[in-house]
């Protein structure tokens, strides 16, 4: 009997452990299956990504090759029309190359100079296209730039083709590896990775500055603020006084200096930064920067969360508040040009009007709360960079002549004189024609010297953004 019991017990035990094992085996199999599935999926995604990178890489090569060949051709053109057409092609090809190169997972430090080269080349070609369209022949200086650019295009093209021949030898670019190694590559080049372009970045490091009439030209970075240069440097205590006056001493409970621009940084406007706590607030709600030279308020932003009230100001009332504010802060004769309404605030763009000419480069933005008319933002970078006494060129084209340059379907409603900034920050003196074409509002600018149509703006008008008449 006892023996029998024992046997039964053992049998039971065996069963339970068999049971146990099978459960474990099933779970193990499930986990394994799941793991394999996930792994396969990962491989798929990885492959997909590799292919995307590969495509972008090959396209970069193709575009850079084209750029190289086109640049060589420019020298053979002898008519402006032909130059215009070739430079337009370079403009497009270089821009596409830049786009594709920017999509590759190279570390910024190894690719930034090549990206910059392509941006500038594309931008430069666009400005050459315009020059040629205006009927000018390229001058000595332009050709010198073209040769220089061509040299770099060749370098880039060669370097990329070297990589591509490595690939043709059966090597593959492992983009994951490139992404991981990017940092190291920039630091030391002992590791050679297939597809790395550290060589390129080295050769591009000493690329000379390129100055031309376009938004990516090097001169833009190096512009000096006209308002602050040669002005006395203020102390941070003096800066605090300026903040006090700007916001209103009676409203402030405390001012704290939060920082200042590092003197090592180049091409920035040095400022003192402050934080202001208002009397009815516990925490600081206003940030404000004052320039070290001259002590101008560069910008101010009040980010208090306001409870919205039912009493809303009209745009007209908000504009009045902003105008009063500017008058008080000694920015006289400011002309509003554009409103943008968001939620319960409105940002109004102002430009000074001097002798009946609107100076659009000297931009100041004022943000007004529509709830109570409080000035909650101020931004004057444009004004501080550009404002100065201008020697305006002589007007050679009469208003009538200028009108005749515009298509007759354009219904002109208002004419102003204005100085406008082009994308390259070059300023041109123009007639400003505001009007409508096929019921859509447009602004057309005609140069007062040459009669050239400098700019056409379409005014996107909706309930939230309004252009003043």
């Amino acid at each position, binding site marked *: 009997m006892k023996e029998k019991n024992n046997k039964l017990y053992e049998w039971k035990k065996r069963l339970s452990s068999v049971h146990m094992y099978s459960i*474990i085996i099933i779970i193990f199999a499930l986990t394994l299956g799941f793991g394999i599935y996930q792994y396969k999926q990962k491989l798929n995604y990885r492959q997909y990504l590799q292919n995307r990178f590969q495509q972008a890489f090959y396209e970069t090569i193709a575009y850079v090759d084209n750029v190289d060949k086109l640049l060589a051709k420019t020298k053979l053109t002898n008519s402006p029309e032909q130059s215009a057409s070739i430079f337009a092609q370079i403009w497009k090809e270089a821009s596409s190359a830049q786009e594709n190169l920017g999509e590759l997972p*190279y570390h910024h430090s190894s690719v930034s100079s090549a990206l*910059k080269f392509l941006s500038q080349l594309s931008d430069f070609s666009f400005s050459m296209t315009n020059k040629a369209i205006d009927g000018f022949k390229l001058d000595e200086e332009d050709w010198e730039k073209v040769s220089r650019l061509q040299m770099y295009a060749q370098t880039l093209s060669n370097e990329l083709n070297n990589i591509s021949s490595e690939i043709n030898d059966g090597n593959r670019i492992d983009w994951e590896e490139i992404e991981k190694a990017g940092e190291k590559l*920039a630091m030391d080049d002992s590791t050679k990775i297939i597809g790395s372009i550290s060589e390129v970045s080295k050769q591009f490091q000493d690329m000379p500055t390129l100055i031309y009439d376009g938004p990516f030209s090097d001169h833009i970075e190096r512009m000096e603020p006209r308002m602050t240069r040669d002005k006395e440097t203020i102390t941070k205590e003096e800066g605090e006084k300026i903040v006090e006056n700007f916001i209103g001493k009676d409203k402030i409970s405390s001012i704290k200096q939060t920082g200042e621009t*590092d003197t*090592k940084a180049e*091409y920035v406007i040095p400022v003192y*930064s402050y934080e202001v706590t208002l009397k009815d607030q516990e925490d600081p709600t206003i940030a404000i920067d004052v320039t070290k030279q001259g002590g101008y308020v560069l910008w101010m*932003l009040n980010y208090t969360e306001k409870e919205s009230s039912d009493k809303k100001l009209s745009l007209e009332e908000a504009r009045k508040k902003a105008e009063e504010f500017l008058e008080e802060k000694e920015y006289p004769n400011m002309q509003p040009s554009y409103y943008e309404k968001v939620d319960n605030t409105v940002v109004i763009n102002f430009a000074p009007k001097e002798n009946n000419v609107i100076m659009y480069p000297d931009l100041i*933005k004022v943000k007004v709360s529509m709830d109570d008319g409080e000035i909650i933002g101020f931004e004057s970078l444009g004004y501080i960079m550009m404002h100065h006494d201008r020697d305006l060129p002589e007007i050679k084209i009469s208003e009538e002549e200028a009108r005749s340059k515009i298509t007759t379907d354009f219904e002109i409603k208002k004419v102003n004189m204005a100085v406008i900034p082009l994308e390259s920050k070059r300023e041109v003196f123009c007639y400003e024609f505001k009007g409508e074409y096929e019921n859509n509002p447009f602004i057309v600018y005609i140069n007062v010297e040459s009669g050239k149509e400098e700019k056409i703006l379409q005014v996107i008008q909706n309930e939230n953004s309004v252009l003043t008449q």
Partner: protein
Amino acid sequence: MKLKKITLGILTVIMIGNLCFAIWINKVTPKNIETISYTWGSEGDVVKEIQEKLKKWGYYKGNVDGKYGYKTWQAVKDFQSKNGLKADGIAGEQTLSKIGIQIPQDSINKKSNTSSYSKDVYLIAAAIHGEGRGEPYIGQVAIGAVILNRVRHPSFPNSIAGVIYQPGAFDAVSDGQINLQPGDSALKAARDALNGWDPTGGAIYYWNPATAKSKWIWSVPITKTIGKHVFGKK
């Protein structure tokens, strides 16, 4: 023998744990944008309203208690199948409007607001939200300003999307946090940045000194420090 059993037990637990974890990871990672819908477990005035209306029309027979339970679910399902909607028992926007219920005002406002924000504002706001949710407001405007400064800088892609999605450029893009719905603060900050407020002094880089792994980044001259971030320009 006992030891073996315990080991087996532990092994089983670990494996089940693994499996659950793997499934959970798969479920949790995609972050969905919230939409307005009411279903099992929903509570509140809107649910009450649904029950009231459905009771009036004879779909619902339970109490009007504001709790979305089985009976409400069944009633909504019946209502949906009678009205040519997908009969899933979830009162989404379509069903609610068919029932004749105004979706709460604040969620409507939020929706129409976000859609009236232009694409640029939304994209920048998403990047700000992903990168600097915990930062002071000015620090958020600063992140937006850096993105815009990069667009204008020749060494970077020349569009907002190009800059934000450049591989490796922003951590929030690499780890998917950019897909979170940006908060009001981020939207406001994006708007201010697009309107020209630049607290960074023209910076094109920023990094967190406490977590920056890159040695290279310290070669960039610093313009300013705002919140946890250091801003720089080269």
